[in-house]
């Protein structure tokens, strides 16, 4: 058995090799053709070059100009540019995994699987991540050599299928019949936003005046991976009549809330749900150059810029409280002093992504889960979280259903529900991005394949 390195160029790339949402290339497609090999999912990387342009002419961004303060989510780096990740069977185009709002998924997943040590070291090289907004702008967006030498990146496409430990069969007779990996790019308006000026008069906020022409551009994009060639004996051992392949998957849902008693209800339609988590952003800030559309900030009231503190959280399954058979009451719900996010909420949020007891790498801490009134009040910048240290706000709510048996909980016939009591008393609709981690099985035979959720 021997391995081989593959390097796959996009099947829909332009002749100049440059890809941008603005210039009409919102989707990058990679084909890992069907072959009698196994794909090592954890070896798959999206590699390429990244740069920011203030306009088509490629003008350099400049921190000195008050109206030239292009910013992007530092904790996401190049992940912020990926809006959707779709993995299909190459032959049948059956969707195996589809993560919508991928950058928002990563905005919660990444801070719960890496630490400051990671952000200041290898993540800066692989994903252009930085733990600080200004540092990100300085090293990536304002990189003085990026016109000729754009920023290199090489990131794993974190998702259930590729993060699994099992190798992925690519065969047409005993596998998934090749893979078609589609990356939908994020709109520039959701990736770039006006930052905050650094230095003298630093309270001044950037304007969107010159940002309206700005966009990010990828070039030299490739998918690199490693495959295993089975030995002839192993090839004979694979059943050509068909088989099954189990993998983790992330399913995504979106709704909005605009009430002091927010009720979130979804029919997940999933049988083995391991955990659910969600993050929030005011709906008006999605796809806006004026604000960070990928921020994972606490709720707030836009009329007076006060925080809309959560007071109580309940998780429901089929109308009954589950798995926590009680409401989580915020410690400070009746007081005026407690502004931090509730410890139990944060613990459950962490647990919903990675088992709390074994999670040793986190960027969630007391500094970036504050309610907003604890942040120095600079109206917009506070809510765009560029003032928050350690990668910005990492607010979210979630709950794990199964960290022991690894079998999950059946939500195929019972609806998922979450109830949030909060101080959202103004007309400020908030987008709720919900991600369900579940187990799926794909059954295949020579004539096709079927995904069973």
């Amino acid at each position, binding site marked *: *058995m*021997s*391995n*081989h*390195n593959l*390097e796959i160029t996009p099947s829909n790339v332009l002749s100049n090799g440059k890809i941008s949402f603005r210039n009409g290339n919102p989707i990058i497609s990679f084909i890992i053709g069907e072959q009698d090999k196994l794909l090592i999912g954890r*070896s798959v*990387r999206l*590699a*390429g070059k990244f740069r920011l342009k203030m306009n088509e*002419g*490629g*003008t*350099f961004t*400049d*921190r*000195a*100009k008050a109206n030239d303060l292009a910013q992007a989510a530092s904790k996401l780096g190049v992940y912020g540019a990926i809006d959707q990740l779709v993995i299909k069977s190459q032959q049948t185009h059956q969707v195996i995994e589809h993560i919508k709002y991928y950058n928002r998924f990563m905005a919660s997943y990444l801070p719960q699987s890496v630490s*400051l*040590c*990671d952000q*200041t*070291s*290898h993540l*800066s*090289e*692989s994903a*252009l991540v*930085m733990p*600080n*907004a*200004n*540092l990100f702008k*300085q*090293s990536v967006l*304002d*990189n*003085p*050599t990026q*016109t*000729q*030498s754009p*920023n*290199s990146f*090489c990131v794993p496409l974190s998702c259930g299928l590729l993060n699994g430990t099992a190798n992925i069969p690519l065969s047409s007779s005993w596998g998934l019949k090749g893979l078609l990996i589609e990356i939908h790019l994020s709109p520039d308006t959701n990736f770039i936003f006006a930052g*905050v000026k*650094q*230095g*003298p*008069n*630093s*309270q001044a906020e950037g304007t969107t005046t010159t940002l309206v022409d700005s966009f990010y551009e990828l070039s*030299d994009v*490739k998918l690199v991976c*490693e495959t295993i060639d089975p030995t002839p004996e192993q090839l004979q051992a694979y059943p050509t009549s068909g088989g099954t392949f189990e993998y983790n998957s992330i399913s995504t849902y979106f709704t909005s809330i605009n009430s002091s008693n927010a009720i979130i209800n979804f029919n997940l339609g999933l049988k083995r749900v391991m955990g659910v988590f969600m993050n929030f952003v005011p709906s008006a800030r999605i796809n806006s150059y004026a604000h960070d559309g990928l921020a994972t900030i606490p709720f707030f009231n836009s009329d007076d810029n006060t925080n809309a503190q959560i007071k109580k959280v309940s998780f429901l399954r089929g109308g009954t409280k589950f798995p926590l058979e009680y409401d989580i009451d915020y410690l400070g719900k009746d007081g005026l002093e407690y502004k931090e996010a509730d410890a139990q909420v944060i613990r459950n949020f962490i647990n919903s992504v990675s088992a709390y007891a074994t999670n040793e790498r986190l960027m969630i801490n007391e*500094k970036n889960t504050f309610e907003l009134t604890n942040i*120095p009040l600079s109206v917009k910048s506070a809510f765009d979280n560029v*003032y*928050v*240290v350690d990668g910005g706000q990492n607010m979210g709510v979630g709950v794990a259903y199964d960290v022991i048996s690894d079998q999950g909980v059946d939500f195929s016939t019972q609806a998922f529900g979450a109830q949030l009591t909060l101080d959202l008393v103004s007309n400020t609709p908030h987008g709720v991005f919900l991600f369900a981690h579940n187990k799926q099985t794909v059954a295949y035979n020579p004539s096709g394949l079927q995904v069973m959720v």
Partner: protein
Amino acid sequence: MDMSKDPDMAQDVVKTAPSVSPGQIPDLLKIGSIQSNVQMSVDTDVLDPVVQNSKFIRYVLQNKGILHSHSKLQFGFSSPSESGWLPLNIGIGGLIQRATLRIGNQTISEVDDWANFQHYKSQFMSSEAMRERLPYLTGQMMSKKVAYNIEGDQWSAADPPTAISDSHGGGSSGGKDGAAPTSQSHGLVIDSGRSFYSPPGSYESQAPSTEMPSYMDTYKSVSDGEYIDTPTWQIALSDLFPFLKTNQLPLYMMKEQITLELVLTDAASGGRGWVLSGGTASTSFSLDTTKTKMFADYQYYPQEMMVAYANANSQLQFSYTDYRLSKLSFNEDSTSQQIRNLGGAGRIITKVMFAWTNNDPTAATSPLLVWNATAPAREGTNVNALPPVEQDAAEAADNKMGSSIINLKYNNAFLFPIDVDNTARQFHNIVQAEGLVPYVSREEYAREGLSLSKRTLAPPVATGVGGYALDTALSGKGFWHALRLNRSERVNSRGLELYWTLNKLPTATAAYTMRAYLETIKFVSLKDGMVSSFLA
């Protein structure tokens, strides 16, 4: 009676012990395979070298027990003529030029240019370890953190600010005198565990982390009233010989002499320690021979278990990895594609690690000394200046990063279908080769982006004179490559051919040294107490 004191008795016991079925005998040599409820004792010997001079040290181990892989070697320097510290990235490792482990007349493991090898391995130490453990143990200190502004600091190209004044503004209402820091950043700095700032009137002004911790200073001074003895440092045996991370040596089963030999770097060659910028480049860091010790830990399990193990394994064989060095001089003006045969013909090679070292640094020019893996240079105008920087179209079109293009050919096929020119992917290749991530930032690795602070490290703090700007000191100094040979093939008689194009490395006075370490598979065979070693 300790049977280790009487080798003959030990052999008699081995011969007359009752038989035990193989299934009942745990693998005593495999780290992690012994149940936690097995009774074990550890006997520590403090060994002096049998030979010690300025260039060479030899230890001889006793044939008893099982040698614990975390046995330590201790070193200390005589006080140099001025303050000096160990290289930040490898610490006391800068002392070791070659490490050899011999059993009888067989060389079991030998790593040449070990300090460079340790530079590669040290990248995988987390920032936490580099801040909390290694500064005390090995003298390494490479943890990074973000330095945040305090109120009053002004962002400017003349960073760090020379004046602290409220009139300059600072970005928020927080930050000064213990208030929460703002998110304005001065870039990545070395984290010694203390605040990087010393605002006037703050207690931190006494010991900001811009000053190297005094306990790390090798200079002994009665006058400062703090330390009157020079520090000592340790290296683990498993760091010297990496195969000991997964195997232990059953010394009690060996009849031959076990010898550990270390060839040392020159005392004044700029490899062992650094001094303040502008200090004496030829400062000598000579060994304090009274501090050279080995703390050898010998493990013992219940006698019947050890005897049974010896009986069951009278012919013992295990595989391990060893590292062969291939190196050459390289001139940065050679910007066309280079092809270098690294050797490895007829062997099973699992990994190749390589880098280019700039040999110009001296003890008075770099806190990393010559222990660097240099990345291609930035080229253009104001490419090293922090924003705000005006950049016109001509400059933007002219500024660029030097390129690095890599591939490896063996058995008539390339490892990668297309040469790898993306530095982030080159970084990823290290991750794939090691299964670990290097804790190296982007600018430290490939010199890309401006993320390292321009603040200076090392005293005197008040003026910054004599220190080293962190960006200059660390930028592009960790540009290692690692390639995993994943085809499970024995290398044919043509050997490994490394293809590279570097356009181009920073200009240097002395020629660069290109070093490549080949990870080879070897076997050790222990038969009736006699050891032999051979390549797979």
